[in-house]
């Protein structure tokens, strides 16, 4: 092998190069199916580990413009524009001012932008506030709202990385809140211990509810999407039932709500009583660091990622796949359970039927927007938290229903999941030429992969 110029080696290099290239073409289309070796992965392949070599060529500028970051920015922009159009079309005042648009264009534009201005004011900085506290209140509100979103989003993201689609964050949040709240209002202990126990209880509650999914998946092959959807409903009905029982219902109340948690079981307020921001946000930061470490630096995370990317290879390499599936779902559930704790021990301070609001479903979009990476999820959680917090202010100030936030959020995720769509809309498609040249295809390879995918599915 040391002589480098023998004809045999040259041949080999060439043959291999051509095969590599062929594989690269395949890669083009196979990225989102986890190398095609298994049923399509829910995670963008770029986040599954290793590096995906980018197609060579093109200027640096072009790469930036067509890269992932740019797609994300454009997606957000596009969603905001579409949301704006929707609000403008449905706003009678816009129609009114449009009548004299050419006389006073400012009026109409003001009307069009009013909701977004209110949203920014409610989410980041209120420049009309009387003092610094009032001006900064919105940003603390955003952080408060984003804490459970980040925690639950991490749960969804972690499961994604193990190839599991955890739609069950909603139920897991409920279970975490249920366990935590119970400890919080029935046991009475001094401050740090009580809060710690509440957190542990929430962790366990979520872990149990998530672990069931993992157990069913690992032992019976039940599809986690179906199981988690169903368990969400079951958890919700269980919560509603428990809130009518003496153990959970507030004394003297006919409403299905629990007593307030002990003061010792609550997260301390970080910036004093005039802000709602509590230490739950710090928990979210810690959890993000933890998930980063778990995925990047721990053997357990290696197992999770291997199981997520190629289950058969993981099994052949001696990884206990059922154990990994159960564990990852338990940890994912536990993270969502902590989101429940952030609700009952921080924001809400008691347990009610609406404790999970729609956090569990928002968490899915958060994880998708964050491309299932811990820090991506963190920032996506902040963004969606800002939407939520700003949305409330917007609804109060401009009577624009907060539902518009859902529309914008889902549009963002839809666009981000389909980069070619965004590129097509903005007319930047780097692969267009190549695709045309490549014609309909790239070898019989994808077909083999589809077959094998079917076999392992």
């Amino acid at each position, binding site marked *: 092998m040391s002589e480098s110029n023998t004809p045999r080696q040259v041949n080999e290099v060439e043959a291999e190069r051509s095969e590599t290239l062929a594989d690269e073409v395949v890669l083009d289309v196979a990225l989102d199916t986890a190398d095609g070796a298994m049923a399509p992965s829910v995670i963008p392949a770029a986040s599954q580990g290793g590096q*995906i070599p980018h197609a060579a060529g093109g200027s640096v500028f072009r790469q930036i413009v067509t890269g992932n970051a740019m797609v994300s920015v454009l997606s957000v922009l596009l969603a905001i524009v579409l949301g704006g159009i929707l609000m403008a079309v449905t706003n009678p005042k816009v129609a009114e001012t449009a009548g004299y648009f050419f006389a006073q264009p400012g009026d109409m534009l003001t009307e069009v932008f009013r909701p977004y201005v209110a949203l920014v004011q409610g989410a980041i900085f209120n420049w009309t506030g009387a003092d610094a506290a009032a001006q900064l209140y919105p940003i603390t509100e955003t952080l408060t709202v984003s804490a459970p979103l980040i925690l639950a989003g991490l749960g969804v993201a972690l499961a994604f990385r193990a190839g599991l689609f955890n739609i069950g964050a909603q139920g897991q949040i409920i279970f975490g809140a249920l366990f935590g709240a119970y400890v919080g209002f029935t046991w009475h202990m001094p401050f740090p211990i009580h809060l710690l126990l509440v957190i542990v209880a929430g962790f366990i509650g979520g872990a149990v509810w998530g672990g069931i999914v993992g157990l069913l998946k690992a032992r019976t092959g039940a599809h986690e999407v179906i199981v988690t959807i169903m368990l969400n409903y079951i958890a919700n009905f269980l919560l509603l039932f428990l809130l009518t029982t003496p153990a959970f219902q507030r004394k003297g109340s006919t409403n299905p709500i629990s007593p307030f948690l002990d003061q010792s079981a609550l997260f301390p307020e970080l910036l004093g009583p005039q802000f709602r921001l509590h230490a739950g946000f710090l928990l979210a930061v810690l959890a993000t660091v933890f998930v980063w470490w778990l995925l990047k630096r721990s053997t357990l995370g290696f197992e999770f990622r291997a199981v997520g990317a190629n289950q058969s290879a993981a099994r052949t390499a001696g990884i206990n796949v059922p154990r990994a599936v159960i564990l990852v779902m338990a940890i994912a559930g536990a993270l969502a359970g902590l989101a429940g704790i952030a609700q009952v021990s921080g924001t809400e301070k008691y347990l009610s039927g609406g404790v999970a609001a729609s956090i569990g479903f928002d968490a899915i979009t958060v994880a998708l927007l964050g491309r299932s990476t811990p820090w991506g999820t963190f920032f996506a959680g902040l963004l969606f938290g800002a939407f939520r917090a700003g949305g409330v202010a917007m609804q109060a100030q401009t009577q624009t229903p907060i539902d518009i936030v859902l529309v914008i959020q889902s549009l963002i995720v839809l666009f981000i999941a389909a980069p070619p769509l965004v590129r097509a809309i903005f007319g930047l498609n780097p692969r267009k030429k190549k695709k045309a040249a490549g014609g309909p295809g790239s070898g019989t390879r994808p077909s083999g992969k589809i077959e094998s995918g079917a076999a392992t599915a």
Partner: protein
Amino acid sequence: MKLELKGITKRFGSLVANDHIDLVVEPGQVHCLLGENGAGKSTLMNVLYGLYDPSDGEILIDGKPVVFKGPGDAMAAGIGMVHQHFMLIPVFTVAENVALGNEATKAAGFLNLDETRRKISEISKQYGFHVDPDALVEDLPVGVQQRVEIIKALVRDAEVLILDEPTAVLTPQETDELLDIIRQLKAAGKSIVFISHKLREVKEISDIITVIRRGKVVGSADPSASPTELASAMVGRAVSLTLEKKPAQPGEATFKVRDLTVVDHNGQHVVDGLSFDIAKGEVLAIAGVQGNGQTELTEAILGVQQHVTGSIILDDVELLGKSVKQVLSAGVGFVPEDRKIDGLVGTFSISENMILDLYDKAPFAQGIGMKPALIASHAEKKVEEFDVRTPSIDVAVGTLSGGNQQKVVLARELSRPLRLFIASQPTRGLDVGSIEFVHKRVIAERDNGTPVMIVSTELDEVLELADRIAVLYRGKLVGIVPAGTSRDVLGLMMAGVPEHEAELTAHKTLEGGTHV
């Protein structure tokens, strides 16, 4: 029908898979396309069958240019194809599979399967196929499934039949039957394009041979050309068809399998009462046609099969009932038969794949934490040692060529001290250069004194590597024979004929002089 390809070029991006290929297929002729894995044979046929648009060049039928937008057009023009991986729907019946895309219907689009059944039995009668139109395809043996594929083409009045590596899954006897069928089809005036890299069959059946190398036609050959000549043309350099190796020096038998039985989820005994030993410094090759229990045997040893009974002893320790991790820790190195599915995580980097089964062992991990720096330096070392061609160890392994992927698997499995080395289909889909590399490594491991078990469906590979050959048929051991056993005897054994009977039969055939 005369079929011509003129200057067919197919590019994928910057890769030229087919480079100005010219080919003429005359009626009533068997035209062989000979070439290595990855030479561009299948791409060419997919162009011909309308699955790919050619980037350049044209297809002529009886002198008239035609354009195929899809397989439908190709079939309408009289071209049929039997794919290497059968294109049959397992949960459909034979009749449904044959009807698909060419359905006979009653009023309002309702299926008329009786019509299809009639056609199937007509063709079956003509060519002597025994195919039950109402059997589910997943219940049929591969040989019969292949006939269903041929029926599919004939029902559509194919005049040109493309067979892509049709013998890869057949026993030598089934192969002979297939060759007979091809002769019948030829006699009926059909043209056959026979794609293969197996010299023997090509020599036996073809009227004309076209050799393709790296996307180009490098010449045509006469069927009477010697195998070495053909191989050289195919590979592009002089090849010696044999591997240089020292005779084995078997030591003590440290790996013992006794009465091993594996039951699958249907209750079938896919491995049925196997017993054999492998000694240190010896290669035992498990020969047999695909699907005769080899996969299940290796997986049973590894510990991923359920319902296993019997005993698997390595160094006096029972492996049966142990987890995969425990089996690997006992010193078993395992190269799975499908590297892309079982051997590698395609989206993981090379360095991560290099420790796929060592990730939690020292020095790569301490407790639950991993050591990225050590993992990287390990990967650098192994990439160097096994000559993996890659720009970086951080490249996703799925982007490497097949040969380099297999080197990564080998590097990983051979990077720890082994007590037993198992390699399934170690060279499937590799080019000649990589095959040589892999074979050398396997023999080197044997010479280190490790018991080695090779599972291969390629008789050539078995004969090249083995010190002893165990032949499996329907999960049972037909016999264990020494390395020098003739192809004919092995072929008969692979069809389930016991050793001594096989020898007698083979002897007679040789006397009759009909075999090559």
